């Protein structure tokens, strides 16, 4: 009742203050602000549209053959299959390494750590790491994972699945930590206090009270960061994602595969874009379409998860 009354009052006050004049400059200003978002929309649409029209002949002519073919020096035979497989292996590796580490670090910083100088330094350091350019992580991967740990990651100093995957994992970890901390922070203290009140230890509180409520937020954030890793190209150039033909003999053990040469979908987009000629350009566009489809699917899953499990306290 009172809400309606105050709304009506505000309306009449506003009308009186406006004095029946139309606030033209105000509307123009608002229109300009909307325009900024529309420009972003136009860019998005133009990007998808031009890419699709360039890629369309490739899909029309070759269809699944483009997705299922290996990399080739011939534009008419080149495909992205090795890149798709490579990217999926890399992402699986990143998920296995970066998610547990990142979530554990977030739990420590948010649930365990006191406000000491060391812990403040840790958090500041993580924020900084999240802002370090991805090429720099590539250099780290080259020096540490590909060269110094070469006995572990494979004989080729230029890189392997292992060194590429570790590099991406280290790149994604700070982002995973930050989004997980945010999700943990959103769980109200009363939930924790209820658990402490019945005698739970800290780990028990975290495991059975905090984590279940924070999990949806964590999942969404980490899925989005995996999508980012999926599209990441620059660090992979340094840890040796192959841009040309790549030989994948069958009958290798899983370790040999992980220590062997690799390529990734965004790397193929890059190498196709660098080639000269219209048919390569069409290939690059088609590879982009495949890449965008994967990323959009992943993002859509994350957004659906968020909308389904989002909780207001």
């Amino acid at each position, binding site marked *: 009742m009172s809400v309606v009354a105050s709304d009506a009052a505000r309306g009449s006050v506003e009308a009186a203050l406006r004095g029946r004049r139309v*606030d033209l*400059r105000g509307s123009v200003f*608002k229109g300009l*602000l*909307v325009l*900024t*978002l529309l420009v*972003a*929309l136009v*860019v*998005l649409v133009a*990007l998808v549209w*031009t*890419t699709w029209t360039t890629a369309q002949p490739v899909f029309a002519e070759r269809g699944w053959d483009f997705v299922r073919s290996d990399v080739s020096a011939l534009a008419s035979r080149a495909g992205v299959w090795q890149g798709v497989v490579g990217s999926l292996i890399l992402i699986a590796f990143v998920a296995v390494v970066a998610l547990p580490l*990142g979530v*554990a*670090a977030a*739990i*420590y910083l948010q649930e365990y*750590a006191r406000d000491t100088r060391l812990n403040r*330094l*840790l958090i500041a*350091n993580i*924020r*900084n*790491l999240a*802002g*370090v*350019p*991805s*090429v*720099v*992580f590539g*250099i*780290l991967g080259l020096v*540490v994972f590909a060269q110094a740990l070469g006995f572990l990651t494979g004989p080729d100093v230029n890189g392997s699945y292992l060194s590429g995957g570790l590099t991406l994992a*280290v790149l994604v*970890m*700070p982002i995973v*930590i930050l989004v997980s901390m945010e999700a943990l922070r959103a769980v109200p203290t009363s939930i924790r206090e209820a658990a402490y009140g019945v005698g739970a*230890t800290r*780990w028990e509180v975290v495991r059975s009270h905090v984590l279940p409520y924070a999990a949806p937020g964590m999942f969404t954030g980490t899925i989005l960061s995996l*999508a980012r890793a999926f*599209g*990441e*190209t*620059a660090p992979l*150039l*340094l840890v040796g994602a192959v841009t040309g033909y790549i030989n994948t003999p069958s009958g290798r053990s899983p370790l040999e595969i992980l220590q062997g040469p690799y390529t990734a979908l*965004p790397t193929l*987009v*890059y190498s196709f*874009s*660098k080639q000269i000629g219209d048919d390569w350009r069409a290939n690059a*566009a088609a590879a*982009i379409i495949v890449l*965008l489809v994967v990323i*959009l699917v992943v*993002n859509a899953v994350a*957004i659906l998860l968020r909308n389904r499990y989002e909780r207001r306290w």
Partner: protein
Amino acid sequence: MSSEHTAPQLLRGNAKRRRKERAVRIAFQAAALFSLVVSVAIVVALTGQAVGWLFDVDLPMLWGDGWFPRQDEFDILTLLLGTLLVAAVAMLVATPLGLGAALFLSEFATPRTRRILKPILEVLAGIPSVVLGYFALTVIQPDVVTTVFGGAGAFSFLSAGIGVGILTIPLIASVAEDAMYAVPNALREAAYGIGARRRTVALHVVLPAAVSGIVAALILGLSRAIGETMVVAIAAGATGGALRTINPFDGGQTMTGAISSLAIGSDQVQGSSLAFPALYFVGLCLFVITFALNVASERFVRRVRKAY
């Protein structure tokens, strides 16, 4: 349960439970400390290799009329100017678009329009940078730079800068919007109470109150633009050497572009062994610049948190 179990010490549980508790805590702490190890590794790897390289080159090689690693000409200024040029174009694109979007979403949009328009930025943020590089090369350069500004050639700093700018919009918008959102409603209501209009409130109350956060957003955007690699590697066009230039219509080399083209080996096929390790030195410069910018923006963000 007998009454002795309620004694406070016993609530801590038996030895096994406490051991488990300690182990879990140590594991979590180790994970958190790992991030510090990563930072130290970055600094050590970069400085170690870069200093080694600096000992190997003759210092006059660092000064010349261009960046030609194959001919032992490592003019860092060429890369620095290229980077600044791209970043400046990017900021010219991203500042009005990002801040405008933030101001609209935070001050003018109803919850419904917000739900419809916000995803534009979220989708844009999810587009990989290689894709923007391709877009800059195949659309921005021929259709925008050539037709509107009359540039020539297949590559230019301008098209790369516009591409990087598009990538930077979502970051600037989201950090700036957070800052505007943090401005207390009491300030807005006070202004409305004395008859201010929406536009007045947005421009003269919210913007000044959120200014530190907005500066932080711009600095972060600049740092992102300087560190962006793939757009530059594809659309700025220099694989290999480049002359020093400050003309945005020229193609050329930036710090990130130089690192990537050294890495994929287009510069090490022939030529001296000094070429490849040069990327460590360039990487160190890049790291130092972006680190300084990130620290600066964190300062500004903290100021917002203190104020409200």
